[in-house]
């Protein structure tokens, strides 16, 4: 039987007097929970941690949304350079059934010291999750058979279409690609 995984992202807004910042938690509706293997909580940031199997369910597109999934890490310069484009996409298209998921490949032991401060400093608004699965030779080809494993890399996916890009994006290029998904 085909498991139908319906994913709903619930945006939890923390009203925070001190910083006025809005923080999001990726949460899954309770029909078919895709539970993270761990949840990292630091101040007002929550980062769900997935291994590849749970991550795969997370982006299984049995819903009507278009997902822009970007593989990145704080140590990856070209990734950090293109993040503003993804944030801009998030801002511009959040009302149009588009979700941006920033999949961090930072080392799990660097999350507290590096990833969390990075998210705070750059006030990232898109969903940030941590993919913690050292068996890369098993899961990289599942993301895309042609992916060498170099980052940045991006998938745009919805119920009709899926494209993989092993490249850096400018905002215009990313928006161009995304438009093809939305008008389909």
């Amino acid at each position, binding site marked *: 039987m085909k498991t139908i995984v319906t994913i709903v992202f619930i945006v939890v807004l923390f009203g925070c007097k001190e910083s006025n910042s809005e923080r999001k938690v990726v949460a899954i509706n309770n029909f078919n929970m895709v539970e993270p293997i761990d949840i990292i909580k630091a101040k007002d940031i929550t980062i769900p941690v997935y291994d590849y199997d749970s991550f795969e369910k997370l982006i299984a597109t049995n819903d009507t949304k278009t997902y822009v999934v970007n593989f990145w*890490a704080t*140590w*990856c*310069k*070209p990734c950090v350079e293109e993040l503003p484009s993804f944030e801009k996409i998030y801002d511009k298209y959040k009302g149009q059934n588009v979700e941006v998921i920033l999949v961090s*490949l930072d*080392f*799990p*032991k660097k999350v507290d010291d590096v990833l969390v401060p990075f998210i705070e400093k750059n006030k990232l608004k898109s969903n940030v999750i941590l993919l913690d699965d*050292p*068996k*890369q*030779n098993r899961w*990289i*080809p599942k993301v895309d058979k042609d*992916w*060498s*494993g*170099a*980052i*940045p890399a991006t998938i745009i996916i919805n119920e009709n279409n899926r494209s993989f890009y092993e490249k850096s994006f400018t905002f215009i290029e990313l928006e161009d690609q995304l438009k093809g998904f939305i008008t389909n």
Partner: protein
Amino acid sequence: MKPLKIIFLIVVVITNSAFTFPSSIGDGYEIGDKAADFKLKNIDGKTVSLSDYKDAKGFLVVFTCNTCPYANAYEERIIALDKKYKLKGVPVIAINPNNPSKSPEESFEQMQERAANKGYTFPYLVDKGQNISPLYGAQRTPHCFLLEKTSNGNIVKYIGAIDDNYQDEAAVETAYVANAIDAMLVGEEIQIKNTKAIGCSIKL
């Protein structure tokens, strides 16, 4: 004149396609391909070529760099591989594929510093002009190419990651490179010839 032009065009197209190499530059090597030798500057100022190693049975060519956290995570393991296998005729040859004008922390001086601090036991070469990594098809750091020296040149035997756990050496289940070298040295078929791993993209 027009039909002549068309014939000329057809001839041009056929000739061009006839001279297109099956694996054009940029695609890189596949298992079984003959790997090109190179002449690159080492951190000691001397140049190194594969042909300098008269008694080698093969080479572990590793594209790596100063700053990539994955490269750093594997540094100790690359040193260990070199120490173990150069005694058996398969030395490590490390090449920094990054263009230092685009990433200054990959400069020659900083390569020297990194190698000295970490105690590199192998040559650490500058890919000046960034020609060798695209030729080999290195796409990230670290990226390994195991070559076997044969009468027919240096043949690519394995391409990919060092092992299957970058985070924790103690949790490694399959030591891809070590297994491949062991098999190569006794003339057995290498079980896993291609692997993928996350790594830093190369700044050409």
